[in-house]
């Protein structure tokens, strides 16, 4: 252990929900996107699922909102080391979209892509079973553009760069294909509980 002389740090927070190496950002919600925030109206927003599926499909805003509502209440964790507790998102479970397109048995991974061209890769198993959403509400209000509105992917059990803002689609694949940050040295999966920040972690 390399102890830093004179460093004591914050009072120890006994938060069972805080993954290793993270701190509680409190009311802050930092914005860290690398691109210009797009000016994207709900009427222009679409979400497509294709690739290794039986019935590729595109939803517009109203069609997506016709699916059963689903909410996430819990925590989110950013690779830059802040975590935010007790957030509330509203939208639709990704399971509802996937049920409509019927993934092939050969599909193992997905690339999520944004209306800006941003991409991120995920194992399909991280997107199913009630653990991933298309979210358009935060705290009961429309999701702000700088946080990914009108709609973003939400995969809260992974570091938050996996929760692509301004989500435009998912392409299902039979292999893993690194996305934007993953090509820039970040971890392929990004599990905060195993501190999978960078490739090799």
């Amino acid at each position, binding site marked *: 252990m390399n102890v*830093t*002389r*004179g*460093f004591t740090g914050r009072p120890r927070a006994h938060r069972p929900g805080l993954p290793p190496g993270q701190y509680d950002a409190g009311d802050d919600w930092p914005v860290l996107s*690398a691109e*210009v925030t797009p000016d994207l109206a709900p009427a222009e927003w679409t979400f*497509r699922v*294709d690739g290794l599926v039986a019935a590729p499909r595109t939803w517009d805003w109203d069609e997506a909102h016709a699916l059963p509502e689903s909410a996430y209440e819990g925590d989110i964790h950013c690779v830059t*080391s802040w975590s935010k507790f007790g957030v509330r998102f509203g939208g639709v479970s990704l399971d509802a979209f996937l049920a409509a397109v019927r993934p092939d048995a050969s599909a193992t991974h997905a690339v999520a892509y944004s209306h800006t061209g941003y991409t991120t890769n995920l194992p399909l198993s991280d997107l199913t079973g009630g653990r991933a959403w298309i979210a358009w509400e935060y705290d009961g209000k429309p999701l702000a553009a700088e946080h990914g509105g009108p709609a973003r992917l939400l995969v809260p059990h992974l570091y938050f760069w996996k929760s692509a803002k301004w989500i435009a689609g998912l392409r299902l694949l039979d292999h893993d294909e690194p996305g934007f940050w993953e090509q*820039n040295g970040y971890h392929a999966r990004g599990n905060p509980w195993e501190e999978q920040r960078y490739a090799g972690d």
Partner: protein
Amino acid sequence: MTETFTPPTRFAVPGRIAVSNRAAALWQTATLTEIRRETPHAATFRFAVPAWEGHLPGQHLMLRLTADDGYTAQRHYSIASAPDDDGHIELTLDHVDGGEVSGWFHTGAQPGDEVQVRGPLSGFFAWPGDRPALLIGAGSGVVPLMSMVRHHRARGLGVPLRLLVSARGPEELIYAREYGAETTPVFTRSAPEGVPVGRLAARHLAPLLAEEPAGGWEAYVCGSNAFAEHASRLLVRAGQPVDRIRIERFG
């Protein structure tokens, strides 16, 4: 039904350089060798990192402090120094109100102290010195941009480079003594005699975009989210292509 997806906008994919996964995975000891005050709220910390494998301007690192009970705190910081400094790197840190890491640096750190670093990280905001660079920063957001300015100077690069740097006032302007003809400071609260006060505006960008070099500018924007939103919108309105704007937001 034919459906091909075309994003309405594209941004600057991919990163500028390939990154070393080995360097990113490895924690190394960095020994503090020097502390230089820059402004009342910011200071530069110079470290010896003998096994540092080198970085490009614009890259950052992760820094970790460890308490004697094993508690750790880690943060991302942009690298301020140019990459041609053998075995040494510099960081310039704001003293963040209540910040446990920046607080230690500003109130407790002394030459000889050891911290842990891993990096350099990420190739997205890196500038290898190849394309004309239009740099826009505010506050400590100037730090990664200064690495680019220093690199440009140290190597005598001929590729055009301009820096617009926003600060509250002259006393808050980090690296004030180092700027040359490439830099235009913008003062938002107080300014020297004869210099206008006001936030970054279209009139600051217009002359730079008017002198656009062959191949166009690669724009690098760094600062708080509020500043990054403001500056990137100004750039888009002034005609800078959205896929030639790279943003590093401090949060």
